C-alpha cells in the first residue's frame, strides 16, 4: 500500500462502548469506527492488493481550479446569464418584436425539454405522446381565462395541475407496461388527445381553436418574454433541487436498478408516478405559456411531428444533461429564426439529427461540447474519465 493515508478510526473521538447506547441515539458509524478497529480497512487493503489496485481511481484528491480559475468560470457564466436577462431591453422596433417572440418560444421549449428530460432522462420512460400533456395545459389555461374569465395565475396553476393529471393517468398504465408496448400506448395516447380530446368544441373551440389572451401586466412581447424567463428560471431551479434530493435520486435509481432501489426503501410505484406527475406539471405550465404566447391554441398544433420534436430535441441536445436540454430546446425552437428558413426544414433536420444521435453520437450535443461543460464545472479541458451517456430506454453506461 503506497501513498494513501487513511484516517485511522482510532484517531476519532471516544464514544461509549455500551451496546445499549448503540441502539439509542448514537450514530452507529461513530461506534463502528471507534471500536471495530481496522477490520474493514484491512479488508479493503487486502482486496486492493489482490486485485492490483495501487492507485486511487477517483478524482477525490484532485485540487480543482485555483481561485482565479473559479472567478473566470463563474464570471463567464454570470456574464452570459446577465446578457440573456438584459437582451429584451435592447430589442427595438419590429425586428425586436420578432426577436422577443422567438425568445419567449425558446424559453417555453426549454420548459418542454425539462419536462421530457424528467420522464425520459431521469426516469427512463418513453414518451411519444408528450404533446398530450402540453396541450391539456394549453387548452386548460385558454379555457379558464377566456371562458371562465378567471385570472391568468389561476389558469396557470390549473394548467400545471391538469398536465400533472394527464401525465399521471399515463403513469398508471406505465406501471403495468414496459418498453415497446408502453411506447405504443404513449403514441396512441397522444393521438387520441389530438383527435378526440382537443376537438371537443365546447372545451377547446373545435377547429377554430381557443383564445388565450395575454395576462394583465404582461401584454407586451417584452413583458411576456420576461414572464417566460422568470418561469423558466424557477423551473430550472426546481429541477436542479429535485435532482440533488432524495426524489431525484430515487427516480434515477428506479431507472437503473429497480430491485436494488426497492431494497433501499424506495417506494417504486409512488416514485414512478411522481416522475410522471412532475413531468406533467412542467408540460402543463409550459403549455399555458405556449397558449398565451400565441394567444390562440389549436388542436392541429399537437400532432405527431410536435410529439417527436419534443423528444428529439432532448435526445439530440443530450439526454439527462440539463445543459443538453437547454441547448437542444433552444436550438430547435430558434432554428427557423437563425437560418431564416421556413420551419419546414426544422423538423427534417431534427429527424436527421435524431437518427445521427441515436446511431453515432449518443450523448448528443452535450457530449460533443463536454470538455467545455467540464471546464465550467471546475474540471479541465482535457478528457479524463468516461462520462456516462444515456440512451432512451437504455442503461446509463455506454462502453
Amino acid at each position, binding site marked *: 500500500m503506497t501513498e494513501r493515508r487513511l484516517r485511522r478510526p482510532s484517531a476519532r473521538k471516544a464514544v461509549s462502548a455500551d451496546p445499549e447506547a448503540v441502539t439509542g441515539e448514537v450514530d452507529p458509524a461513530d461506534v463502528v469506527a471507534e471500536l471495530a478497529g481496522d477490520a474493514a480497512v484491512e479488508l479493503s487493503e487486502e482486496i486492493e492488493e489482490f486485485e492490483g489496485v495501487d492507485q486511487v481511481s477517483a478524482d477525490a484528491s484532485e485540487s480543482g481550479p485555483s481561485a482565479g480559475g473559479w472567478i473566470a468560470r463563474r464570471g463567464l457564466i454570470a456574464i452570459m446569464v446577465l446578457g440573456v436577462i438584459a437582451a429584451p431591453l435592447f430589442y427595438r422596433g419590429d425586428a425586436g418584436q420578432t426577436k422577443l417572440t422567438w425568445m419567449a418560444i425558446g424559453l417555453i421549449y426549454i420548459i418542454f425539454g425539462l419536462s421530457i428530460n424528467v420522464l425520459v432522462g431521469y426516469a427512463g420512460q418513453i414518451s411519444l405522446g408528450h404533446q398530450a400533456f402540453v396541450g391539456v395545459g394549453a387548452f386548460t389555461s385558454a379555457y379558464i381565462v377566456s371562458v371562465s374569465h378567471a385570472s391568468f395565475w389561476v389558469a396557470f396553476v390549473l394548467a400545471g395541475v391538469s398536465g400533472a393529471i394527464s401525465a399521471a393517468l399515463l403513469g398508471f*398504465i406505465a406501471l403495468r407496461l414496459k418498453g415497446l408496448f408502453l411506447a405504443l400506448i404513449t403514441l396512441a395516447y397522444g393521438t387520441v388527445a389530438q383527435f378526440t380530446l382537443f376537438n371537443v368544441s365546447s372545451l377547446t373551440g373545435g377547429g377554430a381553436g381557443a383564445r388565450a389572451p395575454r395576462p394583465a401586466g404582461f401584454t407586451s412581447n417584452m413583458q411576456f418574454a420576461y414572464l417566460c424567463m422568470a418561469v423558466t428560471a424557477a423551473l430550472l431551479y426546481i429541477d436542479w433541487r429535485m435532482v440533488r434530493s432524495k426524489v431525484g435520486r430515487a427516480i434515477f435509481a428506479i431507472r437503473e436498478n429497480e430491485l436494488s432501489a426497492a431494497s433501499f426503501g424506495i417506494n417504486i410505484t409512488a416514485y414512478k408516478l411522481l416522475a410522471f406527475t412532475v413531468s406533467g406539471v412542467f408540460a402543463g405550465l409550459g403549455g399555458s405559456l405556449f397558449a398565451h404566447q400565441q394567444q390562440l391554441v389549436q388542436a392541429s398544433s399537437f400532432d405527431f411531428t410536435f410529439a417527436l420534436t419534443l423528444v428529439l430535441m432532448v435526445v439530440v441536445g443530450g439526454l439527462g444533461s440539463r445543459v443538453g436540454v437547454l441547448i437542444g430546446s433552444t436550438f430547435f425552437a430558434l432554428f427557423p429564426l437563425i437560418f431564416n428558413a421556413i420551419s*419546414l426544414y426544422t423538423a*427534417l433536420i431534427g*429527424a436527421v439529427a*435524431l*437518427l445521427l444521435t*441515436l*446511431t453515432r453520437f449518443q450523448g448528443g450535443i452535450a457530449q460533443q461540447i463536454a470538455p467545455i461543460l467540464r471546464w465550467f464545472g471546475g474540471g479541465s479541458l482535457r478528457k479524463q474519465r468516461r462520462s456516462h451517456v444515456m440512451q*432512451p430506454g*437504455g442503461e446509463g453506461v455506454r462502453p
Partner: protein
Amino acid sequence: MKAFIVLGLIDGVVYGLLATGLVLVYKGARVFNFAQAEFGTVAAFLAYWMFEKQHMPYWLSDVLAVLLVGLLGFILERLIVRKLFNAPRVTMLVATAGIALALIQLEIIIGGANAVPLPPAIQGIGVSILGVIVTPQQILTFVALVGLGLAMGYFFSRTDLGLAVLATSQEPVATELVGIGTRKMSSFIWTMAAVLGGIGGVLIGAGGAIFPSFMTTSYLLGAFTAAVVGGIDSLPGAFVGGVVIGLTRDLGGYFLPKTIPGGPNLLVFAVLVLILLVRPQGLLGAKA
C-alpha cells in the same frame, strides 16, 4: 349497418397488411416499426408523380413505386437499423419514429403540403354489395390483399426462405450456426416490410386524395392495435387482428354518437389498452 360491416372488412384487410409488416419486423428485430405506414405514403406519392407528372402507365407506376419503396427500406436498414442491432429496443423504436418524421418532412418539402388526388386503378361505377356501394378500387384492394395474405401464408409455411425468416426470429444464434445470415435476413425483412407498406399505400391511396403522412395518420394506430390484438409475434394473427380492428372501427363509427370527435380512434385506443392489460399476447400469440 351492413354498409359498415362491408367497409370494416375492406379496411380490415388493409390493417391486416400493415400489421403483417409490423409483425414481420417485430419478429426479425424485436422492435415496433413506427415508419411502417409511412412507407405507404411514400409509395403513393411516387406512384402519383410517375403517373400524373411523368405520364407513365398506371400499373407500371404502382409496381415501380412499390419496388422503389422496397429499396428505400433496404437502404434504411443498412444505414440505420444495422447500427442499432445491439441498442436497447426503445432506442431503435425512437429511431424508426425519426425515420417516419424524416419521410413526412421530405414529402412536404418535395411534394408540397397539400393533398393531391390519386386516381383509382380501375375507373367505373361502383357495384352494390349488401346494399352498400363498393367501388372497383375497393374490390380490387380487397381481392389483392386477400390474395397477398394467402400468398404470404404459403410463403411462410412452405418455402425455405419463409421458414428461415421464422427461424431467425425464434433463435437468432442457432440460425446463424446453421448458415442463415442474420444480416441478410435483416435486409430481407425490412425490404419486405417496406414493400408491404408500399402496396398498402398505392392500393388505399388510389381513388382518393393523398397528403403527406396520410397513411401514418389514418392507419398506423389501427395497424399496431391489429398486430397486438392478433398477437404481436403471430403472422396469421396480423390478418385476424386487422379484420377485428377494421370491423371495430367502422362499427364504432356507426354506433358511437357523433358528438365524440374521433370516436373510432378512441375506440381503437380503448381496445389497445384493454388487450395490453388483459391479454398482451393477443389472440393468436404465444404467452410470454
